[in-house]
């Protein structure tokens, strides 16, 4: 027996009451023990006293004692043994509730000593005449497996569960399925199981039919379990896929949102096997209304639904094409719901609903939450980039917003305008004066950098461009690096476009950047420009003023392979996060064989990663040849929005977008990949660029009349140039990166 505490204090009083001769007093004491337990007080010392109250006719009291046992069985393994007799006796009780309670609790005790006594009663309960006991026993097998798998296998419980799938009671079937799935998952996640082992719960055609029958009869939670099992079934042929889809579709009408999403999952999986276009259309059509209805659920369920709708739309953009209005944000929606709705609204944007969308977005831009306002403005920019016909109206809305002169609105609008300029060059130059008028309002680096980029890009159209840029050159050393880089590039652009008036300013910026700047990136870029300008202004023009590839909105935010995987997990955490489960379920699950499996599944990805790696190796070699090569290469490069567009063409890059890439090099790789794709035109390497050939060759294709060399500073001090290799991915990315 455990050591008794002192003869006073709360626990002592409880102990006295627990041993009282009056029934009510004892029961009351148990309640108090449970209350102490809940708030985290240690009442484990009362174990023997509580245990004495276990044998009772009072069901409520029994449950309370069991609750206590579940909590403390682990800490008092020797004493638990005393409870075994009562448990075993209870599993023979005439009352099925008592039988079920006993078997349910025994499974939760988790004391080594008691497990061996569990098998016989469990055997009996699995065959109980009462379905309530059977369904409880079925889950108890999973509990036992979690504790001691050998016992389950040795006692033949697995076979028994397999038989129970054919049980006449749908609830028993549902729990059996849940238990088998649980065991299956636990078993397959063991590193020891070889990949040839197909697992414990294989769904055969005969099981399939039993599941389909049980589906219509069991409780809502049971339906989810059954649907999950159906999702794992591999259909033999097209007919079977069609059959499953047809049987599952009625579940869309279930009131429980998790049943609806589980049904959507099954349909999305088995639809892959369906070839009849007309049936696919019908399925997709039937899917839409239930998804929309999920939006009248409580906010948390809504959010899960919205994240999943986002995925579904990436696969089937036409799914909800006429339903944009239901995604309009309510003023009192929680922020996480609003943000998600915004994303879906942009996805659903088309020429038909443009006006409604823009007036909504404009409305949101006047709300209170800064984050939401910014995202709304971003959404306007995305709409403009997505739909050509929308651009002008978007620009007008942005101008209205800039007119509000609310600092963060103006700044975000400027950032967004830059993307519109990228997409539609030389179309909205009329806006530039308005933007420049707000120069003083800008205090965030991204907004500043965006405006500077615009000024540099249109330097020849802005009369006082040198003056405007001069402001930033004056404060050059105080600015953040992205702003410095942009200033540098913009001034060089200005110089190349208007050499006469800006010689002074370019000289000033290059000197400051090379002498007073402590960022190697900025210094390096300045040296390169300096060198370029001094040796071959023609080449400088080709590099700095190179034509940029157009940008567009990526249709998917995850790679196609990942998208398929996530669609197979609709409703789960993975589908909410848009990330594969391995990234947040850390059980050391990613064993060698699972990597192999993944590798086979996503062969495309692997291939492109390899290609990308080769590119990067090539890039590194080139880098060795000439220290500077990376700089101009990036300069002429698509970045930000542009990069994302180019990227999404290659799976590896798309992988990167999803943030799932395991290879840190992918980051670099995709940039290079993009450049390679965009710029491998005719090769006409400039002499001074010999080493640049792998990326730079494209620049030469721009026909140029070399400007007379306005040699600014011939003797560039090269000492500082032998530098640490700067990462090819330039900060310019951040500044253009809308996504």
């Amino acid at each position, binding site marked *: 027996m455990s050591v008794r505490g002192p003869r006073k204090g709360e626990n002592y009083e409880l102990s006295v009451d627990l041993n009282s001769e009056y029934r009510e007093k004892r029961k009351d004491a148990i309640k108090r023990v449970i209350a102490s337990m809940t*708030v985290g007080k240690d009442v484990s010392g009362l174990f023997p006293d509580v245990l004495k109250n276990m044998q009772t006719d009072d069901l409520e009291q029994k449950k309370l004692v069991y609750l206590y046992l579940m909590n403390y069985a682990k800490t008092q393994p020797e004493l638990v043994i005393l409870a075994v007799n009562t448990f075993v006796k209870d599993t023979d009780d005439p009352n099925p509730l008592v039988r079920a309670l006993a078997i*349910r609790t025994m499974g939760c005790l988790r004391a080594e000593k008691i497990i061996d006594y569990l098998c016989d009663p469990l055997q009996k309960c699995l065959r109980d005449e009462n379905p*309530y006991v059977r369904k409880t026993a079925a889950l*108890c097998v999973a509990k036992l497996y*979690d504790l001691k798998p050998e016992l389950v296998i040795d006692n033949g419980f697995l076979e028994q569960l397999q038989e129970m799938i054919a049980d006449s*009671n749908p609830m028993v079937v549902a729990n059996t399925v849940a238990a088998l799935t*649980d065991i299956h998952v636990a078993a397959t996640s063991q590193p020891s199981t070889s990949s040839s082992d197909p697992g414990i719960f294989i769904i055969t055609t005969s099981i399939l039919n039993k599941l389909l029958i049980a589906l219509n009869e069991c409780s809502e939670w049971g339906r989810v379990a059954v649907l999950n099992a159906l999702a794992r079934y591999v259909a033999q042929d097209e007919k079977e896929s069609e059959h499953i889809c047809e049987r599952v579709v009625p579940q869309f009408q*279930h009131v429980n949102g998790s049943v609806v999403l589980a049904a959507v999952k099954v349909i999305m999986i088995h639809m892959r096997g369906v070839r009849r276009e007309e049936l696919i259309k019908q399925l997709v059509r039937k899917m839409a209304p239930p998804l929309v209805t999920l939006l*009248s659920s409580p906010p948390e369920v809504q959010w899960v639904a919205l994240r999943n709708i986002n995925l579904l739309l990436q696969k089937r953009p036409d799914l909800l094409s006429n339903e944009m209005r239901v995604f309009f944000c309510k003023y009192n929606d929680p922020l996480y719901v609003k943000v998600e709705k915004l994303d879906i609204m942009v996805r659903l944007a088309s020429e038909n609903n443009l006006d409604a969308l823009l007036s909504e977005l404009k*409305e949101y831009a006047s709300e209170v939450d800064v984050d939401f306002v910014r995202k709304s403005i971003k959404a306007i920019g995305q709409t403009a980039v997505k739909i050509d016909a929308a651009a002008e109206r978007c620009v007008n809305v942005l101008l209205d917003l800039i007119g509000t002169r609310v600092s963060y609105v103006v700044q975000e609008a400027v950032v967004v305008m830059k993307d519109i300029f990228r997409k539609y060059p030389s179309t909205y130059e009329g806006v530039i004066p308005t933007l420049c008028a707000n120069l003083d309002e800008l205090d965030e680096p991204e907004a500043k950098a965006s405006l500077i980029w615009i000024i540099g890009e249109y330097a020849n159209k802005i009369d006082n461009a040198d003056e405007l840029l001069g402001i930033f050159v004056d404060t050059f050393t105080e600015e953040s690096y992205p702003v410095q880089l942009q200033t540098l590039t913009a001034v060089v652009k200005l110089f190349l476009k208007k050499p006469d008036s800006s010689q002074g300013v370019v000289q000033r910026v290059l000197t400051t950047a090379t002498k007073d700047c402590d960022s190697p990136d900025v210094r390096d870029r300045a040296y390169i420009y300096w060198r370029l300008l001094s040796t071959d202004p023609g080449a400088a023009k080709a590099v700095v003023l190179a034509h940029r590839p157009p940008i567009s909105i990526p249709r998917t935010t995850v790679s196609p392979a990942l998208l398929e995987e996530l669609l197979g997990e609709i409703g789960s955490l993975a589908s909410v996060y848009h990330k594969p489960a391995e990234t947040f379920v850390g059980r050391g699950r990613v064993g060698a064989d699972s990597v192999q499996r993944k590798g086979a599944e996503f062969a495309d990805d692997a291939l492109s990663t390899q290609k990308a790696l080769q590119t990067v190796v090539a890039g590194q070699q080139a880098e060795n040849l000439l220290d500077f090569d990376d700089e101009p290469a990036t300069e002429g490069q698509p970045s930000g929005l542009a990069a994302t567009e180019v990227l999404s063409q290659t799976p590896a890059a798309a992988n990167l977008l999803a943030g799932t890439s395991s290879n840190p090099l992918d980051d670099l790789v995709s940039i290079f990949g993009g450049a390679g794709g965009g710029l491998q035109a005719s090769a006409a390497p400039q002499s001074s660029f010999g080493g640049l050939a792998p990326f730079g060759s494209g620049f030469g294709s721009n026909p140029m009349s070399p400007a007379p060399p306005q040699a600014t500073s011939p003797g560039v001090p090269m000492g500082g140039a032998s530098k640490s290799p700067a990462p090819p991915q330039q900060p310019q990315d951040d500044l253009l990166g809308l996504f």
Partner: protein
Amino acid sequence: MISAFFIFNQKGEVLISRLYRTDFKRSIADVFRIQVVSNSDVRSPIITLGSTSFFHVRINNLYVVAVTKTNANAALVFEFCYRFIIICKSYFGKIDEESIKNNFVLIYELIDEINDFGYPQNSEIDTLKSYITTESVVSTVNAAEESSKITSQATGATSWRRGDVKYKKNEAFVDVIEVVNLSMSAKGNVLRADVDGHIQMRAYLSGTPECKFGLNDKLVIDNNEKGTTDAVELDDCRFHQCVRLNDFDATRTISFIPPDGEFELMRYRSTSNVKLPLKIMPTVTEIGTTQVQYVITAKTNFNNKLSATNVVLRIPTPLNTTTVDCKVANGKAKYVPGENVVVWKIPRIQGGQEVTLTATASLTSMTHRQVWARPPIDVDFQVLMFTASGLIVRFLKVFEKGNYQSVKWVRYLTKANGTYQIRF
């Protein structure tokens, strides 16, 4: 699946804690308290830290929390949390810190019953109430028989109904409750108008009655009786688990064996031809920087015999409002500084009537002038015997072996509750 289930109060104290699986210790509750309860900037209902995910639902200053370590079914976890909340409301009439503390024994019983090893089990309130009660149950021989019945009900094909129900008077009440969602733009365009409908049924019928339920559903009516015009187009319907979904999918008939007592038979959504019961016409003008003038007119848009009751308009005022001078002919209007709104309560407006509020808000001058975001006007109301969608119950047929006569009652109610918003 769900490994642990907690209820916290606002301060982060554990009111209920139950571990369903062993991958957590109770101390995981502290992690939640630190990361979520005491963190003011939580912007997602799911927080994942390492491989542990916390799902939380906030209700009346309580946190209902489910914890898992797996790639759990997020939709299911939240549905489960909400089901728990509904069960508590049904048992205790409300859910708040006090009711949880007073009933913790019962709650432990409940959460033990509705979830086993992390898998949700039968959570039909009526069934639960038959064997989890506030009075203690003594296990006698009689009780054992009774329990057998209960358990076979709880797991049977009609888990929601006992077979031996008897009533002297067989009655069924059907309540059609519609919630109107409206957002109207400042220019008076309807941005979004739709109806979320619930059909609530209270069945006091003997035996095992087989019910058939008919609505003026356009798809049904168009097939059968051509030429009827008052049919309603339902975008989507969802049913209580007692309704045979296959029948509905094939022929759109709603047939079921109802649970005994109250339950939600179906939910539906309708977006076409929504009749808006109240028309709100706001004119809000900012006069300089010191005054805002309001003229708000509300007009009912239904039959004279009906009336809207409990009408409450919440009219936002700028943040720097000092006083508001309101003039109303109907109801009462009051400025609530804490919420920056004028609350205008009108007990009743007859059909076809019009009521107006005129008000002037005086503002203090501010050094930093920020543009007023103008949140929308929010309207709450109830209209009895009116459906915004135009839905009507055409029949409810009851077939039973006993062949008894049954009485059926139908009520309609249209309401808005934080969902009827007019921008200005």
